[in-house]
Structures are given as C-alpha cells and as structure tokens.
C-alpha cells in the first residue's frame, strides 16, 4: 500500500478523539441535567424481562403497552389439526377438492392470458411465479403448487412451480424487442436489481469451450468434457447489477466487510434466479452468462458502467459497490448503448483503489497497457492489468472476501449530500481532477473503517435501511 496516502490521512480514530472531547463535555453536562445520576429508565415488562430497545422508532402516537390488544383466553383455547408441517391448507381442503380448485384456477388464469386482462396478462403471471422462488413448502395462492415441496437443487429453484404459456396450450409471449426490454427492466428492479441492461451476444467474448448450435432447444453443460452447448437462437443478453450494503462494505478487510460483500452476491443471486424464472415464465430459454464468458464486457456494452483501473465495472451511480449477473436468451431484446462519464481519464490520476489494495495487486501505472500480468488474463484489451494471483492469495489466506477496491472508489459514494454530485460532475467535466478529488475524498475522511477504528463495531447500532441498501440511490 502506498504510504503517501495512508500517512496523509487523519485517521477516523484521531478525528473522533477531537470531536469526542468537545461533544463529550457538552453531552455529559446535558445528560446529567436530564437524568439524575444513578436513575435508570424502566426497561422491564410485566414478566420482569428486559425489553428490547427498538431501532426502528414508531411515531409518537404509537404507545407501547404491556399486553397485546387482542383479547385471548387460554382456558377455552383449542388448536387446529395439522396434517403436515406448517400447512393448515392441507387439513382444511381435502385432496379431491384441491384438484378441482386447481382446475378452476387454471381456467381463470388462462382466461386472463388469452384476453390480455389488465393485471392478469402473461407478463403479470410470469412476474407472480418468478417471485415464487423461495417456497420450500407448498402454498395456497399459487395454483398447481405441490402441497409439500422441498427444493433440492438450483435447477429446481429456477423451475419450481412455473406456469409458462405452454401449460395452457398457448404460444410464448409475443412482444417487440423494445416492449420486452421495458418489461424485463421493470421486473428486474422488482427482483432486487439496482439497474438492468441489455445487449446482443458478442461471440468474441465467449469462452472457447462454448458452442452455439442450431439443433438444440436447451443449453447443455458437460463439465466432465468441458463443453457448454447453447441454442443458436440465444442471441440476446440481459444483465442485472445489484448494489451492496455500503455500511458493511466500508468495513472491508474484516468479517463485517466480507458480510457486506456476500450480501451483495446474495442480492445478485436472488435477482438472477427470479429473472431466470421470469424469462422461463414467458416461455423463452436462458443460459447463465457467467458460465459462457466474462460478464464485464457485456455489462460495458449494455451501458451499465465503464471499466475502472481495478478492472471491475464502475457504475456512475453506484460506483464499484455492485455485483453483476446476466443471461443469454432467445427473447428478442432492444439493446442499450455503452456509456462514457470520463472514467478512463479520471482513473489515470485517481489511483485510490491501487493505493488501498491490501495485496498490492492493482497497478499504479499512469496509463493502461496491452500486456497481461499472467496467463490467466485475456489479452487484446488496453487496461491496467492487475496481479490477480496476489489478490486471490490475499483473499484465500484470510478466509474472507476482500472488496476494498470496490468500496474505496470515489464513485461508490451514497448520494445524500450534494457534495458527491458536485464531485461527480466536476470529474466528468474535468477528468484530470482525479488526483485532486481523491485527495479531497481522503481529507474529508471517506474510505475504509479499519480494525483499529472505534467505529468498526458500531455497525450493530446503526440505523440502516432494509438490507442496508438505499434503493432510491440516483433516483430522487
């Protein structure tokens, strides 16, 4: 790591000491004025248990009470019969009646698709069942769902209880490529993607073991013989990026930071499974892009970002705090165009990711170059090739995933202060401002929270949004 940047930094600890001294004096004075010393607020309930101090505060007009507001009487209570674990539906409705209801439901659903009834169209139905990906038990509210189900593997997760039009003897969804992209984007955001992009298959980026074949209708992967055969009609690519929980990610190089990284991957995985289910629900096929080629070039084509010095995708709204997934499909899609927000120039002088990389794996060169660092990297691109073996070694030796480079990138900021927007606009208009802006970034104290920072364990007390994600980033 470059000591230049490290040594210039006023650590969070030093800063907090200063602020703490001033705030501490006033704080102690005001607290002691309000609460007499030694008096503790009563935090016990009627059972004498210490009550939880909820982070999510209700408004003032909601009061806490000692008993639930529904009257109960255990003396006259009886319990309903349960036939299987957690499904009372099976107890209430016998199998024969269940089958009759399913047939009625099937007709009702088919009527919605054929007549394009608003709220019951084929994409509406596909959305419903795409989101039905987490059921490990049979459920009501989804027709034909097995009454007790245990999903055993990933394939079942993607195909479980789907109802594509062929189930009703109907054709696959018909729509223009523009309409298809519009619908997939809306669905993708609902599935948890921060952004969705589309592009066409570029065979130059596909791994050598992948073959596109006219005679097959489903992808066939043969791991033993290193072959992945994909139907020739899979010419379109849909990509989803999911942002990560920033409060965890800036605690990188720790288990908390690794948790943030895993959370980002989990969000990506869930969104991906649901997108695959959605495409299948429209009666089109899909193949995992990750198994067919490197995903970043497609994401660049789809306008989801530019390639940064760290050789990861940098999105202008979410920076590097993202993970990407994607699919090849035969559903015709209207492609997006690549974007340019001045990152190539900016990265030349910024270099924060390289100076903060704990493995020293990222290049500090002033210009990108054509020569790969080792045989595991594809040539033919002018980038800052990193020493990916050093990175892999660092991660595997610690047993937790590092994504320091992604977190410290100045583009990975949240957008709650206008300062970030001004910095981004400045870097687009004056791309050579990278050095100045990255120095400012560090002077203002942005960057990693490290093991020895007092804030490390404060995460447990932060008031964070759901999943730690601000889903309005870049939208408000």
């Amino acid at each position, binding site marked *: 790591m470059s000591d230049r940047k490290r040594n210039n930094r006023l650590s*969070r600890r030093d*800063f907090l000491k200063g602020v703490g001294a001033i705030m501490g004096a006033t704080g102690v004075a005001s607290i002691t004025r309000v609460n007499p010393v030694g008096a503790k607020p009563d935090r016990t309930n009627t059972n004498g248990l210490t009550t939880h101090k909820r982070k999510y505060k209700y408004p003032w007009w909601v009061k806490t009470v000692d008993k639930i507001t529904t009257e109960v009487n255990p003396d006259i209570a009886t319990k309903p019969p349960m036939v299987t674990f957690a499904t009372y539906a099976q107890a209430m409705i016998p199998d024969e009646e269940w089958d009759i209801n399913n047939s009625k439901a099937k007709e009702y659903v088919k009527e919605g698709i054929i007549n394009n009834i608003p709220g019951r169209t084929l994409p509406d139905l596909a959305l419903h069942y795409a989101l039905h990906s987490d059921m490990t038990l049979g459920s009501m509210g989804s027709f034909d769902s097995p009454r007790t189900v245990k999903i055993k593997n990933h394939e079942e997760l993607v195909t479980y209880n789907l109802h594509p039009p062929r189930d009703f003897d109907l054709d696959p969804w018909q729509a223009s490529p523009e309409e298809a992209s519009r619908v997939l984007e809306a669905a993708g955001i609902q599935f948890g993607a921060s952004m969705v992009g589309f592009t066409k298959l570029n065979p130059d980026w596909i791994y050598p073991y992948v073959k596109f074949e006219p005679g097959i209708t489903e992808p066939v992967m043969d791991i033993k013989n290193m072959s992945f055969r994909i139907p020739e009609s899979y010419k379109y690519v849909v990509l989803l990026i999911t942002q990560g929980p920033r409060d965890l990610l800036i605690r990188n190089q720790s288990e908390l930071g690794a948790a943030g990284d895993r959370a980002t991957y989990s969000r990506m995985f869930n969104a991906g499974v649901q997108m695959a289910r959605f495409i299948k629900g429209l009666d089109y096929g899909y193949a995992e892009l990750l198994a067919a080629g490197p995903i970043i070039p497609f994401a660049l084509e789809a306008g989801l970002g530019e390639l940064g010095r760290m050789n990861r995708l940098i999105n202008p709204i979410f920076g590097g705090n993202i993970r990407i997934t994607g699919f090849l499909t035969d559903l015709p899609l209207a492609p997006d165009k690549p974007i340019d927000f001045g990152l190539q120039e900016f990265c030349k002088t910024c270099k924060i990711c390289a100076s903060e990389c704990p493995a020293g794996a990222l290049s500090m060169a002033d210009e990108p170059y054509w020569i790969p660092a080792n045989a595991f990297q594809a040539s033919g691109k002018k980038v800052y090739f990193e020493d990916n073996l050093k990175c892999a070694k660092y991660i595997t030796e610690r047993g937790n995933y590092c994504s320091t480079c992604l977190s410290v990138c100045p583009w990975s900021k949240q957008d709650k*202060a*206008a*300062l970030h927007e001004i910095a981004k606009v400045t870097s687009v208009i004056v791309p050579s401002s990278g050095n100045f802006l990255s120095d400012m970034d560090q002077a*203002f*104290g*942005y960057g990693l929270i490290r093991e020895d920072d007092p804030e490390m364990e404060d995460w447990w007390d*932060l008031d964070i949004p759901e999943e730690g994600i601000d889903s309005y980033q870049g939208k408000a």
Partner: protein
Amino acid sequence: MNLILGIAIGLGIAWLIYKTKNGWVINWFGWVLMGVSASSFVFGVDLFFGSIIEHEMRAGWMGFGLFSIVLPVVLGTIVWHYSIVRSA
C-alpha cells in the same frame, strides 16, 4: 430541514433589506460575497445532514465547519469591513 434553512435565509435577507433602507449601502462585490457565503452555508448544512444519513460523520463535521462556519465568517468579515458604507 429545508424549511428551517429557508426561514433562516429569509430572515437574513429581510434584515439586509431593512438595513439597506435605513442607511446601509452595500457595494456589488459585497452582494456577491454574501451570496457565496449563503450558498456555502447551505452547502455545509446539506453535507452535514446528508452525512448523518450516510453515517459519514467525519465528512459531515469537516464540511459543516468549513462551508457553514469558516468560509461564511471569513467572507462576512470582509463584507463587514470593506463592502458596507454606513451613512446613518
């Protein structure tokens, strides 16, 4: 927050108008510097409250101190000494 900022700035402008009608003459660069000061103040407050949500309090305090206190005080001092002619 925006409401409180709006009221504070509105009161400041009302006070200035009152003073200019009662003997103060402020030259053009005085007005420019006051505009810069007010913008800087608002910017610092925005950064402070934005940083609370972002859990980036160090940046919040730095920004508030710099943009909402130091810069307005320096510019205000310049205006006070060099831009205002008090005729009354």
